[in-house]
């Protein structure tokens, strides 16, 4: 595309210069917004982050008592563990299904069936998170009570299943892209040697596409870490160190969503919620960055 790029000629009208400037401005808007998000979230929390917050306690203490009258404590360990445990559980469910579906859609499927499956997966991805939360609150809650004889079905397991259903579409679509990116000559070479489809998948495609599959899992995990409404409604909402799939937990995201409405602006508690926001932003930023580098790594090969 570079060869034909002319330096703009002298007779370019003024209106075009204006519109080109506008386009360039919009082009870099994403950079501005990403920095803007960090800046404004940081700005609201900075006061307490640098003046008074015990960062060690913030990251390692499980005691989250932001509204205690005598001794306010802002330890987020239980929340961090809540986020990571429910995400891990969701990935345990979503990764086998997501990769399995991606392999089926990309390798075993007739073209017509493939289109149907892709439409269904797209529709699955479109269901809003608050609806998943509502399903967790009603249908899945009763199911878990009935199956596990648990007193309350709003547990880590419930949230994990909801998150799995939400992140499966991402995993499928990115993993399918990764499998499709493997050159057909690899498949043909393997088949010429007498390999069956499954042998091609297992011996050739999976090793060749492993970076892309890893990126798919990472992006699915990033989605789960950042998800708010579903875990807010489905995981029981009590600050605990998670002990098993049936324990009640709370995540970082759910804490912000539940408590931001009840705090006064400028309060310590209010600022801590923004610091949790910075923490979340950093975690997802790093995960997305790694996924991006992994994907870029494949392209360069």
């Amino acid at each position: 595309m570079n060869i034909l790029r002319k330096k703009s000629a002298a007779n370019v009208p003024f209106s075009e210069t204006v519109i080109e400037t506008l386009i360039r401005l919009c082009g870099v808007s994403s950079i501005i917004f990403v920095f803007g998000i960090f800046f404004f979230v940081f700005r609201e929390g900075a006061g307490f982050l640098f003046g008074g917050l015990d960062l060690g306690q913030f990251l390692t203490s499980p005691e989250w008592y932001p509204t205690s009258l005598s001794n306010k404590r802002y330890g987020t360990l239980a929340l961090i563990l809540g986020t990571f445990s429910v995400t891990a559980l969701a990935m345990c469910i979503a990764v086998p299904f997501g990769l399995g579906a991606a392999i089926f859609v990309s390798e075993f499927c007739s073209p017509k069936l493939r289109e149907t499956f892709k439409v269904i997966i797209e529709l699955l991805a479109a269901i809003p998170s608050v609806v998943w939360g509502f399903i967790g609150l009603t249908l899945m809650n009763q199911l878990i009570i009935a199956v596990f004889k648990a007193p309350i079905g709003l547990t880590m397991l419930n949230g994990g299943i909801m998150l799995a259903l939400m992140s499966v579409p991402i995993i499928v679509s990115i993993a399918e892209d990764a499998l499709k990116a493997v050159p057909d000559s690899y498949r043909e070479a393997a088949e010429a040697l007498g390999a069956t489809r499954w042998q091609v998948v297992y011996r050739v495609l999976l090793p060749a596409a492993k970076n892309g599959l890893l990126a798919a899992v990472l992006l699915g995990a990033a989605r789960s870490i950042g998800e708010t409404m579903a875990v807010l409604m489905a995981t029981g909402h009590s600050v605990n160190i998670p002990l098993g799939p049936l324990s009640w937990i709370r995540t970082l995201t759910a804490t912000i969503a539940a408590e931001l409405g009840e705090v006064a602006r400028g309060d310590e508690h209010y600022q801590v919620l923004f610091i949790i926001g910075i923490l979340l932003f950093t975690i997802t930023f790093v995960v997305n960055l790694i996924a991006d580098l992994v994907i870029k790594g494949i392209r360069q090969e």
Partner: protein
Amino acid sequence: MFTETEIGRQKRRIENVMRIFFLVMTSLMIIPLLLIIGYLLYKALPVLSLEFLFENPKDNMRAGGIWAPFLGTIYLVIVSLLVSAPIGVFAAVYLNEYARESWFTRITNLAVVNLAGVPSIVHALFGVGAFVLFAGLGESILAASLTLAIMTLPVIIASTTEALKAVPMSFREACWNLGATRWQTIRRIVIPNSISGILTGVILQVSRAAGETAPIMFTGAVFYKAIAEGNLFAYNIAEQCMALSLHLFTISTQVPDVTEGIPYGTAVVLVGSVLLVNAAAIVLRIYVRTRKKW
């Protein structure tokens, strides 16, 4: 003659087992979708009617319909669309038509990816910090829509880029050779040839914005606000509004003794509109593919 060996038979058996195994795994994803829609519809049947759509919530949200939240969601979606569609399309035009291969373009692309990955609740915090407080918009439809617009921007950028990439390079080259400037080429050739693809992205943005809850919770959506029934212009964009997604959250977790079917009815309307909009995008995309001229 060539007869199948033991190894060959085993290979074929494994092949069949694996094929069925993967088919089952894929099918297991369809079941929740059908199950959820079926369950919600079944539970919502007693309340679903036209009055449900056009009546305000009554009796502390324990009865009545969903007019106020439904209209609020439409307002939020339209205003956010007006902001994010032009910025998103122009951003994609920049990335695809103007930007050269450089570290700066790489960073811009990375920013788009990361913007898509920022958790929705962090967008909410950003909306509070930037629009509600810093820009002084207060909690209003405008602040909430701007937050939604930034959140859904990557959706439009990604699908517009896809659509622009599908226009063959030779179209542009032919136009340049006639002496057209770069913008003239974009306006007369590139955009008309990719308009359906761009529209698909815009439609997907609508579906995404309509379903989001977290970003609007603290930036402009309220639990309850009474508005005139049947008046399409009942909201003022400088004021707060109700929203369908937040309404579902409220009546299913915060309000006791809601009439049984109402949360389900709200969920059905929300899921129904989102899926309908998505289906429209899918149909448009299939139409584009069949009508492709090159």
